[in-house]
């Protein structure tokens, strides 16, 4: 399943709650936690990271990975944390609202 437009940012922010991570790690994590339901387009990931960084929601620095490779690590800023909580709230309410509209029970289509 491909990601809904606009949700990648939210997922990235969520991933970074656990601490700093590089791009490849972020993509892997999203895929893993969603039981491989959500596939992150690696090519789209970096512009998204770039965008979040420009907004001041995440910050980045070069570091070394577990297996001793140089990588750019991202971490959540204070602003990003606030943004994340707002976005999560919104997302949950939207999910509920859409759920209500679609109806809880079986629907004949």
């Amino acid at each position, binding site marked *: 399943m491909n990601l809904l437009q606009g949700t990648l940012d939210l997922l990235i922010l969520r991933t970074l709650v656990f601490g700093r991570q590089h791009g*490849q790690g972020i993509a892997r994590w999203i895929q893993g936690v969603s039981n491989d339901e959500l596939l992150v387009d690696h090519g789209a990931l970096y512009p998204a990271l*770039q965008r979040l960084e420009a907004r001041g929601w995440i910050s980045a620095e070069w570091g070394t990975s577990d297996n001793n490779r140089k990588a750019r690590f991202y971490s959540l800023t204070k602003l990003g944390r606030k943004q994340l909580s707002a976005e999560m709230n919104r997302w949950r309410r939207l999910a509920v609202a859409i759920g209500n509209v679609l109806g809880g029970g079986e629907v004949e289509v």
Partner: protein
Amino acid sequence: MFRRLRRQTDFSAEVQAHIALETDRLREEGLDESEAQAEALRKFGNRTTAEERFYESSRSIWLEDMGKDLRYALHALFRTPTFAITAILTLALGIGANTAIFSVAYAVLLRPLPFPDADRIVTLYERLPGGMDESLSAGDYPDYQRQAKSFELLAAYRGGPVNLSGRNRPERVPGAVVTPNFFSVFGVQPELGRTLTPQEDPPGGVLVAVLGDSLWKRRYGGDPNIIGKSILVNGEQRIVVGIMPPQFQFPEKTEIWESSRFRVPDHPLRPMLDESTNRGTHYFDILGRLRRGVTVQQAQTETTLIAGRLKKLYGDDEESDRTHVVNLHDDLVGETRSPVLILLVSVGLLLLIACANVANIMLARGATRHKEVAIRGALGAGRWRLVRQFLVESVLLACTGGVAGILLARIALGPLQKLMPANLIPGGELTISLPVMLFTLAVAGNAGLIFGLFPAIQTAKVDVNDALKEAGRGSHGGAQATRIRSALVMAEVALAAVLLIGAGLLIGSFGRLLSAPEGFNPERVLTLQLSLAPAQYPKPEDRVRFVNGILENTRNLPGVSSSGIISRLPLLSGNSTRNVDIKGRTPPGGDIAPDYLVVSPDYFRSLGIRLLEGRTFTERDSATSATVVIVNQATAHHFWPGEDPVGKYLKIGDTKDWTPIVGVVADVRQHGLGETARPALYIPYTQDPWPFMAVVVRTSMDPASAASAVTAAVHQVDHDQPVFNVRTMDEVVSSSLSPERFRTLLLGAFAGLALALAGVGIYGLMAYSVAQRSREIGIRMALGAKPGRLRLFVIGQGLKLAGAGVLTGGLLTIPLTRFLSSVLYGVRPTDAPAFAGSFVFLILIGLLAAYIPARRATRVDPVAALRVE
């Protein structure tokens, strides 16, 4: 917003690292080296695309978003063209009017004078008791020059038109006689030749002239060889020494500057006489250049000390012991400041009304866009981003309106310039210059923010959940939005009321001016002006002969019933006064120097001025007979209250004889229809033949048609004599009112526009709410409500809005009208008819604006209304 940009190489390194990490992972998962690398690359997709996207995004998120917002805004506006066009037109009107008026205000009040360090150039006056300014006397001027340390220099000039004759046809041009240091005050260099030097300092110097660029090009074909040649000015030789650049036209569009015969500018009536030591004559103006660091106030303090010393040494009782130093620009702006500010404020109010109107339609539109906002919000658009979207839309509207407004203003400038009093602008004409453009830009941007703010705030409050739910149920806006909209419409009506009352006051005042008793009858009167050059008419007898000749010639023209001359035609600027002595007595109201006017016997009859007592002048009042004087009513009241002045004696000015009063005439509004008449003395022209005069001819036909015959009659006496300002007296009256007409027409136009906009505002709100409530109305009608009552209900709502607005406006206006009082004549700022009239107007407009939606409401088909949605 603009962060330090990341390098492309840094990004490439990151991508490289990603692929390495992914390859490691894939190898751990069991792929061999080459397989893992291929898979990692495949999963990353197109690297170039990623890098391109990086490149684009890193340019700045902010700009990118802005671009999106703009595109989105354009799209949104194109989707609703009626809305967009209405909003843009409304704004174009508001912004255009502001641009046009600001260009007037800029030209009149703000544009700096085109001289270096112009703020150091000042005018020096003596301050008379009662707050009037008078120029220094010829005798005092050198004392100020020597003693005052505040000025780098003090120069003197006397402006006045001159006759140019010689090789081309005779021409009358605005000129000035100046002291040699005049040009140094301005620090402006000639574009050719030189200006005046101290060698021209009289007496005995060669008389020279400096020409203005326009005169040089027009009359002398721009010939550089004119320098050193002699030309005929008022029939006398002047050597041309230099040409001034086009922007130098001081004072008032002057085209020729002459050196003076004596140490001060020549006296207009006695040019051949040395007046430079006469401490009693005041006839020229003084300009000073302040030393660096000296303030206007310091200069005034210093010169006031000098004035006090001079009065002690030489002065009589009437001499002033105070001075008044004014910045030249302020002096030129003078009384035009407050009318222009009034116009500026009015047009600002008009723009606010326009903004309120646009905000209102945007709110109505915003209500229907809730769903869109909610969806964008749900998809992750931040609140600020949504608010910004609306602001971008409104600023886009405002800027489009601004551009259209500038176009409108450009169209309006032409008529505006024609309508403007000719001497309103100190040097220069109306243009949409860079400062004006910047002003418009700022106004448009702010307008966009102001009217965009309401819908934006409303948007910020949208709750995604509720909005989506509401959208499903088809309800709109909400009570709060309606309240905001009602408040906006009310504010609009209130502002319109302010403008209407202001316009009402000005119109009332203008009406009073038009119906003010002039003291003369301007109908069927032709006037023209003449100025006899001293070289051609040096002796009083020559001038008397000339005047007798033209009077005789004009009187005998067919269709002319009488003709006369006067030294200063009523309603034209300029004045001459003389001190009087009434047998040693001081009049109860204090000493006043009455106006001094030289007239021919038939002047009173020609202009229709009534004789109240005694007799008018006759042919027997000649140069050789005993002097006589006629006074006006104001003189009689001031000097002999309750008495008949005929037969009383006066000593006028420096004369030694006692002159008997032979008659009293009605007061004439000599200095403007809005000015009460000053005391005036009329002297027979044979006893003091002035070189400049106005000829007044009463006709039995259309006076304009007599113009060529009268001009020819003058030329029969002297065919080289320039005849100028040939106008009917009605035209003289009309042009004397041009400042009042200008502001009354403009404020009236603004008020009319405001009225229309307020009407549209009420209409829009009522129509919208009727449309919104069609279901409710349908239900009511289905339940048996009478259409008449429904109609009344809707109209009542509209009237409530209008009424509340009108009351607020009335209250707002009361403290504001104070500022109008300086331009009002015969009308108090709390004039009841002006207030009542504008209330009635606005209520009527409210009624009309509510009536149309009300009628529509009762035409609702209940069944259809219930089926909506």
